């Protein structure tokens, strides 16, 4: 426990202690007001994918470093390395054609931080989203087709596209993944949720060398979004490899076969594993499968690892076989190398960014440090840009809807009026000013009004305004009108003061505990007492799993793409659910385990949600809006402040970087910053 205390001491002392030494910074903090934040949020923009073959370039150029290797005879010429002319991925850079070269410096926090560069290196996704995050565009696959009945999704690969070792990528790499990796129970013991519809498995079929079909027994029109989103099947070989869970839907067969028993024998691969210090062949395969850990595995990404993630510097260099070009025919990426230096804690990463040691860094940068970032911008020669998120709440008060403990409190938490009263008792604007420097949006859990599933701006305010009078009336009506001498309401069962418990997780992007403490003060006006308990996140999650949390604060990030990432919107995912794990288990198991919710509205939301995966786009969007209306009306989670840059949206960019969008979409499904195509960033 000594360790935990040490960490919280660290985070509270952290930069704050350093700041206290500098009076000018304190003054700047006081001056931080909404106009400041708003002026840092620019226009949403990004590069575009050219889809008309007529506009494709005909001649090609390459980086000088590669040119030298070609001349030395170590590499084939660029025309031979790129896919066939009509099969290229052509990207129109945001502002201008860039220059080759440079080393992009960033920070990472250790081997668990693989998403740091996965998200830069996400071009190997089968499909992806455009810079607005709404439209599916080609990526690894050049085209796709969903059958009319929604049961088959076909993808078309790029003829002549090659792995980073020069070997061609074909449908056989997909079939290898499907037959030898995915269907091997030793490697993937449980099927992927997104490769199933209503619990029934999908199949993969090779149509020809460059065409692959995904087939399902029931209509599954949504599957194409799974291929474009940040999912087990669609996030790309590199990303899923780094997660070490064998997703990706394709894999370099020519390289990985040597690690599978099927192609030699179980004894031979086990011996190989033991010789290298691994327990068995599965753990060796896991290691070899990861682009972050293994710099030998062929990849389809713009950069490939040189020095792996489990060393103090995770570095990568350009992939000479990357299959995308700009509109002038220059092979991408522009930037030669990426070097991520290890920061043992995020405070050090922030301080280094302030010192101007990073070229582009949005991950790990704290919104609460914004005044210091601005203060040092000139000295560090960088610009600060804010990228607001699309989700409704950076801090959502997830209610323990399936909480089993104190029966009286469990009864109240399941009462809609009680939840409404708690919500009306929160002064969100005060929270926004204090912790988001005024750049967030106060409101419910509903996503930003301009997202496709938003039920309309009025739902962002529904039950999410400060109205202590109405809150008090609701609570009085619930039979909680008796108060003690301190003005707090008494329990209806006569067991003293009504005391709720709110769990806040320490060391997060948002200061959950401080927000909780302020809400505690605000709830005093409605006579509700709450204990704020800070916990380490593993403990908080374990308590979630045991239905022990009354209220827990967590972000609802990803909820804006309801069907791709529903777990922060509805209790439907048994891997993580803050608003009722028992219900999530019930939903995920199809009713065989967990507990059936007694709230008919939740059942209604579940039914609508389940049916949506088979619906056509238009119908599904309508259903999503309905679901959001139910969620906002029922307040299974209470939103506070969101749509803010607190979550990886504070972007520090050196002034010599080119093709940088003023604002980029900040969301999980587009794998920010991938949607800005970092391949087109360059050093001026």
């Amino acid at each position: 426990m000594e360790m935990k205390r040490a960490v919280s001491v660290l985070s509270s002392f952290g930069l704050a202690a350093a700041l206290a030494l500098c009076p000018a910074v304190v003054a700047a903090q006081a001056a931080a007001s909404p106009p400041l934040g708003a002026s840092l949020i620019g226009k949403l923009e990004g590069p575009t994918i050219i889809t008309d073959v007529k506009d494709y370039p005909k001649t090609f150029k390459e980086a000088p470093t590669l040119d030298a290797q070609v001349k030395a005879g170590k590499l084939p010429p660029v025309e031979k390395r790129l896919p066939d002319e009509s099969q290229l991925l052509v990207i129109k850079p945001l502002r201008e054609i860039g220059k080759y070269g440079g080393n992009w410096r960033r920070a990472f926090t250790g081997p668990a931080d693989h998403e740091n560069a996965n998200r830069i290196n996400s071009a190997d996704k089968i499909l992806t989203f455009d810079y607005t995050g709404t439209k599916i565009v080609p990526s690894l696959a050049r085209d796709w087709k969903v059958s009319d009945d929604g049961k088959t999704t076909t993808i078309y690969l790029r003829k002549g596209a090659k792995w980073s070792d020069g070997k061609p990528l074909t449908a056989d790499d997909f079939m290898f993944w499907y037959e030898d990796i995915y269907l091997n129970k030793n490697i993937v013991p449980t099927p992927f949720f997104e490769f199933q519809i209503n619990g029934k498995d999908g199949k993969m079929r090779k149509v020809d060398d460059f065409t692959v079909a995904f087939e399902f027994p029931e209509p599954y029109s949504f599957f194409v979004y799974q291929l474009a989103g940040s999912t087990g099947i669609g996030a790309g070989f590199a990303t899923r490899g780094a997660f070490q869970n064998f997703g990706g839907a394709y894999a370099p067969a020519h390289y990985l076969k040597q690690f599978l028993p099927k192609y030699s024998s179980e004894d031979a691969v086990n011996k190989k594993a033991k010789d290298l210090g691994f327990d068995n062949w599965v753990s060796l395969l896991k290691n070899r499968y990861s682009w972050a850990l293994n710099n030998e595995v062929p990849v389809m990404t713009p950069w490939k690892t040189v020095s792996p993630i489990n060393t103090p510097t995770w570095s990568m260099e350009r992939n000479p076989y990357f299959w995308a070009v700009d509109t002038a025919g220059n092979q991408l990426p522009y930037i030669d190398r990426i070097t991520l230096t290890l920061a043992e804690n995020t405070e050090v990463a922030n301080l280094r960014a302030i010192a101007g040691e990073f070229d582009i860094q949005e991950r790990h940068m704290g919104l609460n440090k914004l005044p210091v970032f601005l203060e040092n911008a000139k000295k560090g020669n960088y610009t600060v840009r804010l990228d607001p998120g699309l989700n409704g709440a950076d801090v959502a008060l997830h209610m323990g809807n399936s909480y089993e403990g104190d029966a009286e409190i469990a009864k109240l938490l399941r009462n809609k009026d009680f939840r409404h009263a708690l919500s009306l008792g929160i002064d969100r604007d005060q929270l926004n000013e204090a912790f988001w420097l005024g750049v967030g949006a106060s409101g419910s859990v509903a996503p930003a009004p301009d997202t496709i599933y938003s039920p309309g701006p009025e739902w962002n305010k529904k039950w999410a305004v400060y109205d202590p009078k109405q809150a008090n009336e609701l609570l009085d009506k619930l039979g909680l009108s008796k108060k003690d001498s301190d003005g707090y309401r008494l329990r209806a069962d006569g067991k003293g003061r009504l005391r709720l418990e709110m769990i806040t997780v320490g060391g997060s992007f948002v200061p959950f505990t401080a927000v909780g403490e302020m809400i505690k003060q605000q709830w005093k006006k409605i006579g509700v007492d709450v204990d704020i308990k800070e916990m380490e996140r593993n403990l908080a999650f374990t308590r979630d799993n045991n239905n022990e949390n009354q209220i827990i604060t967590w972000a609802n990030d990803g909820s804006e793409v309801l069907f791709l990432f529903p777990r922060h919107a509805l209790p439907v995912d048994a891997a993580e659910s803050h608003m009722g794990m028992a219900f999530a288990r019930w939903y995920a198991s199809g009713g065989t385990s967990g507990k059936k919710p007694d709230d008919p509205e939740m059942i209604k939301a579940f039914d609508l949600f389940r049916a949506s995966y088979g619906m056509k786009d238009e119908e599904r969007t309508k259903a999503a809006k309905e679901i959001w209306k139910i969620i906002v009306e029922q307040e299974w989670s209470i939103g506070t402040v969101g749509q803010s840059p607190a979550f990886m949206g504070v972007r520090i960019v050196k002034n010599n970087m080119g093709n940088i969008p003023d604002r980029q979409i900040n969301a999980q499904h587009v794998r920010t910053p991938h949607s800005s195509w970092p391949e087109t960033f360059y050093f001026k």
Partner: protein
Amino acid sequence: MVAYIVRRLMLAVLTVWAISVLSFIIIHLPPGDYVTSYIASMSASGSAVSEGEAQALREQLGLDKPITVQYAKWMELVLQGNFGMAMEWGRPVTDVIGDRLTLTIVISVAAIIFTWVVALPIGIYSAVYRYSFLDYLFTFVGFIGLAVPGFLLALIVMYLGFAYFGANVGGLFSPDYAEAPWSLGKTWDLVKHLPVPAIVLGVAGTAQLIRIMRSNLLDELRKPYVMTARARGLTEYRVITRYPVRVALNPFISTIGYLLPYVVSGSIIVSLVLSLPTVGPLLLKALIAQDMFLAGTIVLLLGVLTVIGTFISDLLLMWVDPRIRLGQR
């Protein structure tokens, strides 16, 4: 003598075994396991692990088995000289620790050298010239050194370095050298970065040692044999270094037992603040992630080193102090 050493060795083995059991139990005490911790950390960074993946991970890591089975599996590996896989790192535990061990030892040894080089002369000076101006000054500075927690000092040093000297923030290498293979330039770069962590790590220990040295030596200086030595005409330098200082050194030697594990772990919090790639932050992360093989191995390593260190300091004491050596017979 031999029987004594053999008995001590057998006790040491038993102690190490007890440490291995205890460390394994302690790592399992917090609720949840590596997989819940992994899901939580992924969620905190805006990514997701699905239920199927979580289940698969548990099966592959053997976390679905009872703790006794997990312990037996680990012990079986340990006896083969294989300490298992570091879950978060996806590499054998020995490799993960090995990578950081050299630098940890370099930093810790630098800190110890700093401590001794500063503390011994000052301690002796303070005792011999008791209540002089410099004695008061050293006492004053020493108490501040004792009272200021290392991590706070680290933060202040780091801030000053950044704000006024434009120094790199934390770490042991400049960005230019971080990735370069070992060369003269890189070694020099390391030497340039070394003083800050060495001093921050060494300050508290220095202050403590000055006090110990001073009071021990004061006790000795009052004794009749010192007066006798002076009366017999020995030079002041010889009087002090030959006898009282040697006796006053005993506490230094008995702390060697704790020095060894310290050399390997570095200081967790200071290393974290200064972002030093040492074993300390590795242990902290392993504990938070509940990576039982990695955390267990580090704790076991520290335990073994404490045991060995104590053993060595016993032997050294016997060698340095004739009273103990003769008493032993």
